[in-house]
């Protein structure tokens, strides 16, 4: 690229941050939902909902099925212990019901870590949940997340989960130089969470760093206990997990470093590793060897897609509809390494105002193109549908909501964001060196040729 290209200011439209007035099908749940997603994301974590009886059932259809059509496991969905509050509790209080629920859950359940999550009802009727939970502190590892639905969305709920953990449960630990925590990936809400966390863990292990990823891991209590021992917190989101990282810094003096998304493909992954090497001592030769061999491997491998990419979709315009993390990583990969043209990027996770400039910057700071895509912060599915009409893109990377009107758009579709009802996600992901290969494979799954 030439040095003297002109860059226009990106065309950015924004929705109403916070709690907008009316929205069609926003792509997240409430604060209770985020706390539930974090708890069920722990193997052996059990949510105990102090709420009406529908709050777990709705996670089944919403969080779990929406999060890559996943079953909720032993402790989630309709198996979620719940105080099932009704009118008489609204009048007389639900504290006794909750006490019985916690007591019986500890008796009956094979879970290891107990997370009491208060929903809207106890907040409105003024139950003293902290007090009841404290009665069980010596009986099982237990915390209380006060997460009434009206307090925020799933991403807020994720932060509330960690806030409860940090203030009620975690104890300071001696720092371990090569241990890091990974933050910013919300189970189910980021549909590739299981694979992304495993990929990052394996990547860092190659340079001698132990990543405590918490979610999708066995020995949950042990993993939780060592959170304060980490030398660094690594946040893989331009905004989610930042609050938690700051709290952990305050409480346990763990510094954090953040990235605008989960590194996807060789350029982002190498940059990620080099950045980590600036803060944690990594053997430089070992790092260089790894980068060289991994890049050599995946570029040679992607060469097998050379013909289909060049002859089927050369310099194609593409659209993205996703949460911030995913939108940044996917857009930059296709722009920086595959020669494709970002047409429109719609960010659907309603990030707070203060983070939006950085998200736009993360998308537009590429040197490869002299134009900027339209970047739109929008969580309203009706408006998103309208925004996607009559655009030049031919490939769309979006949620399964967009998969229902492809004929109108004349586009192909890859499900990369929540909700993902049409795509089962077990361990698949686009993280790390192989992420690019995997994304290109998804693009052409069942529609590659013949040329």
């Amino acid at each position, binding site marked *: 690229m030439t040095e003297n290209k002109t860059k226009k200011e990106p065309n950015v439209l924004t929705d109403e941050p916070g*709690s907008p*007035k*009316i*929205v*069609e099908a*926003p*792509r997240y*749940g*409430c604060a209770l*939902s985020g706390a539930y997603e974090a708890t069920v994301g722990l193997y052996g974590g059990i949510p105990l909902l102090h*709420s*009406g*009886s*529908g709050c*777990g*059932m*709705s*996670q*089944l*259809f*919403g969080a779990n*099925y929406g999060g890559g059509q996943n*079953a909720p496991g*032993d*402790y989630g*969905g*309709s*198996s*979620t*212990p*719940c*105080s*099932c509050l*009704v*009118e008489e*509790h*609204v009048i007389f209080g639900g504290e006794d*019901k909750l006490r019985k*629920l916690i*007591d*019986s*859950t500890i008796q*009956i*359940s*094979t879970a290891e870590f107990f997370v009491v999550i208060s929903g*809207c*009802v106890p907040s*409105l*009727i003024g139950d003293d949940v902290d007090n009841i939970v404290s009665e069980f502190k010596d009986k099982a590892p237990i915390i209380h997340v006060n997460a009434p*639905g*009206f*307090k925020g*969305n799933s991403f807020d709920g994720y932060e509330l989960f960690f806030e409860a953990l940090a203030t009620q449960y975690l104890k300071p630990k001696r720092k371990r130089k090569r241990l890091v925590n990974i933050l910013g990936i919300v189970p189910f809400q980021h549909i590739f969470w299981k694979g992304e966390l495993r990929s990052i863990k394996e990547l860092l292990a190659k340079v001698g760093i132990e990543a405590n990823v918490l979610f999708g891991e066995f020995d949950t209590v042990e993993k939780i206990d060592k959170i304060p021992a980490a030398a660094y917190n690594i946040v893989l989101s331009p905004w989610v997990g930042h609050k938690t990282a700051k709290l952990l810094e305050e409480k346990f003096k763990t510094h954090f470093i953040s990235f605008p998304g989960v590194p996807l493909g060789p350029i982002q992954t190498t940059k990620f590793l080099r950045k980590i090497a600036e803060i944690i001592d990594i053997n430089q030769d070992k790092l260089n060897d790894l980068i060289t061999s991994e890049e050599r491997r995946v570029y040679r491998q992607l060469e097998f897609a050379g013909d289909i990419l060049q002859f089927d979709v050369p310099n194609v315009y593409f659209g993205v509809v996703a949460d911030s993390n995913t939108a940044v990583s996917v857009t930059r990969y296709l722009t920086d390494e595959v020669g494709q043209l970002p047409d429109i990027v719609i960010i659907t996770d309603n990030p707070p105002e203060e983070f939006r400039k950085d998200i736009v910057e993360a998308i537009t700071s590429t040197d490869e193109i002299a134009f900027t895509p339209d970047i739109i912060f929008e969580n309203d599915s*009706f408006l998103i549908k309208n925004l996607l009409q009559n655009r030049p893109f031919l490939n769309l990377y979006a949620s*399964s*909501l967009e*998969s*229902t009107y492809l004929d109108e758009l004349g586009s192909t579709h890859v499900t990369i964001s929540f909700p993902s*009802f*049409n795509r089962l996600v077990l361990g698949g992901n686009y993280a790390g060196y192989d992420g690019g290969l995997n994304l290109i494979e998804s693009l052409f799954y069942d529609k590659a040729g013949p040329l």
Partner: protein
Amino acid sequence: MQCNYELFIRNGEKMTNINVNNELTEDDDKFVDLSKNTCPTREQRANGINVFFGKATELLEHAKTGDLKCTDRKFSQSGGCLLNFYLSVRIGTIRNAAVIFNGPVGCSTSALGYREVFGHIPVELGRPENYELKWVTTNLNSDDVVFGAKEKLREAILKTDARYSPEAIFILTTCVTGIIGEDIESVVREVQGDIKSILVPIHCEGVRSRIMQTGYDAFWHGVLKYLVQEPKEKQEDLVNVASMLSYTWQDRIEIKRLLGKIGLRVNFVPEFSTVEQFKQLGEAAVTAPICPTYTDYLSRSLKKEYDVPFFLYPSPIGIKNTDEWLRQIAKYTGKEEEVEILIEEEHKKWVPKLNEIREEFKKLGKLIAKDGKTIDVLGSLGQGRLVTQLPYFDELGIKSTAAMAQDFDTLLVEELEDVVNTIGDFDVMVNTFQAAEQTHIAKHENPDITLTCPFQGGAWKRDGGVTRIHAMRGDALPWSAQSGYSGAIAFGHFLLQSIQNISFQKTFAEKTTTGYKDWFLEQPDPLYYAEKGK
């Protein structure tokens, strides 16, 4: 084979002697009062319960003596509420309407599948090519909870009307609007004059009732109060069928086919129907059930308000129940002669197929049944399936030594009594998606086949047959049918397949964990945590 055929005829004859409850008693009648904002709860209306384990005869005794008890559980699981089991998932599929969830953002996440539920049904099978579905949330936040959300609802209604121009707007209430005392009706009264859309408030606050089936009644109440129109003229060939998510697209096709053959049309509500279809509910010749517990409030109200006759039993599940279901409809539409010809024709085609399945079960029974004879199935779902599934299993030559129901109330007492008289006594567990209790009963009854759904947690991990109770309506494949004659055959094959290979559930029983400790699963009482006698 001839012998089996006679069995159905015999049972069929017996069926005609049953006193099918289509006459309203004074007691039933008083509960439908459309001048009220909403329905009574099932607890108030029909003495509904969601906790029982014991013999069917015992349950009947309790029902007759007015002794049904709806007690709390010390350990309870999130089995769904009035809003978030059914209404949230399916009301958003009503065409040319819009839904407003008046609550925090979480109350509507289970509605995110709205565009996809019916989206993948082939147009050739009857899905309209172009349709739009819409729902919005008012996104109530902390300020709204403190200062009230009346303005937000008003704004949401105006914006929804302007944005979509829907024929109707359903307003679904939540725990939050209920507890902070939002006066939904006053907003509706104030705004209705300014907009074209008909506003339909539905009182489905989760905290209203322990029996989530109250949500069905709350929905129908809104439909009846605001949408159903005074009949202009009776449509003598129109049959109302209210069907819910557990009945599939194929079931619709079958019902349409059968009634079409005797010159009748079907008005399927509410899922994926148009607003116009609700308006004409009062013009139909009869309201027929697929799921009686779901349809009950609608049926009784249409009778009371517009003199549309109804029956609640049987549902068209199995051959003889389908025969009787068709005969009931024929009675109200003057098709008594045509229906006998239809039944005869259909029997010629389907009964031999059923007999083949029966033979297969007989062979398999000798090979794999615990008692070396008859395959034992643990099934049912709602009380509607309880009273229709067991006679159908009898037709297949398989048995149920135990059955489950989400709820039980006094609405189907005679029907259950008849089932007991026909097939003998059996264990009944009443619970609304209490996964621990269902895992317990599956372990203790240890049937040859257990029928599960996604709401039963780990009950499926076992060394034995497992298959689904039903599909969701999005499944348009012929093998998912359960209703009518083709459904009786399709589901028979489905059950046969379930005992041909158990490697999936057996592997998971061996290789993964279970959610409950051994002591609970080993002690004898599935209702260990129910607060009895309260």
